[in-house]
């Protein structure tokens, strides 16, 4: 067991854990943050995406011990209290959520993109979500929702 300290959704947390459990399991089982989903478990589907120091990463490929001192943001950390983040609102507005399994990760990938590039082209949006599989929407609504969110972000 190791004692692990990191920033989770803006707050410093300390947890005792086995070093070789995955960040994905740490978030779901120890912090009950079940918005982070397990799909393939081998880094191909992106359902477990979280932000580590602002970058989208697969939480199924990171060991707990590697998180020490880093900053993690999950889907539970991006709304402002009860007020959804503009990307979340647009996902609802554009019908970008169907079964919902890919949505938390998809929103986080979009979030990381817009933080870095507030005015992305459609190609850049596609590249940012290329590691997030969605089997329902066909992606069109998701790309529209992200493009609309970018417009809102840049017009503010």
């Amino acid at each position, binding site marked *: 067991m190791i004692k692990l300290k990191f920033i989770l959704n803006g707050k410093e947390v300390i947890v005792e854990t086995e070093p070789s459990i995955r960040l994905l399991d740490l978030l779901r089982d120890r912090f009950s943050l079940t918005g982070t989903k397990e799909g393939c478990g081998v880094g191909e589907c992106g359902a477990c995406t979280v932000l580590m120091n602002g970058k989208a990463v697969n939480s199924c490929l990171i*060991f707990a011990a590697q998180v020490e001192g880093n900053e993690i943001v999950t889907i539970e950390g991006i709304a402002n209290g009860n007020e959804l983040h503009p990307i979340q609102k647009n996902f609802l507005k554009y019908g970008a959520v169907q079964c919902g399994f890919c949505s938390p990760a998809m929103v986080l990938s979009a979030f990381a993109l817009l933080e870095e590039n507030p005015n992305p082209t459609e190609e850049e949006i596609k590249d940012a979500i290329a590691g997030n599989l969605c089997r329902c929407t066909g992606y069109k609504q998701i790309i529209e929702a992200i493009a609309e969110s970018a417009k809102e972000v840049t017009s503010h």
Partner: protein
Amino acid sequence: MISSIEILTPKNLNEVLGILSSNGGDLRIIAGGTDIVTGLKQESNRFIKTEVLIDINRVAEVKGIGQANGRISIGAASTFTEIYKNQIVSKELPILKKAVATIGSLQIRNRATIAGNFVNNAPCADTVPALLVYNATIEIESINSKREISLQEFLQGPYITQLKKDEIVTRINIPVPPENFIGDFYKLGRRQAVAISRITFAVLMELEKNKINEIRIASGAVTPIGTRFSELEKFAKGKEVNNNFLKTLACKMGDEIIKLTGLRWSSEYKLPVVQQMFYQILRSATKKNL
């Protein structure tokens, strides 16, 4: 949970070298983990005995990209995102940049590292053909030795390299290519994103009045390991670049690949694909001269 593996997080290279020399159990270095964690999960033979993982993400000596004395030095644990965004790489090593962009997904590129790509010598490593045409050398250290060898020498056979148990790859060094060098990289996978490559080629050349003064040709996934094609390179040297010659060279590449891999059930399909792909990459590299 992946059985009880111990994970060490050394803060500098000396600590890493000390741990590697301690001979305590089956040690492995981990950086991005995109190969090791999936390998452990799938109970790959390559990782099944792992007892201790050494995380090198906090080790400054294996990070960072710089340029000095005509060489570009890339830290072994530089992520593909760091390499892709680096200005030196963008300016001097466009073929490496293009190769890096084809790897995995953004989530993978944010974690996976350049040494992690070739240190296991998987045939499908996408940076290998690019590094081979750039004549990359790699620095390897252990607690009482330091050596630098060419990547070509380092890669010995599928999943076999020169790396000893107490050694770590610390940096990848590339001579700055002359400004007039032109080249290209192409990857063929089953789809565009998150695909394991089937065929990769890289080519780099210098033309003098349309004659090939120097050419470097390397393959990735299509051969058992990443390979330079010295006979083809010799054959092409001094020849004039025109459409007919590029076709001849592409056909010869097909022959070379068959020589290296032998005839397989897939050869009938693969041969024309290889020839066409190699022809296209030659054309795209020399498009201003045709």
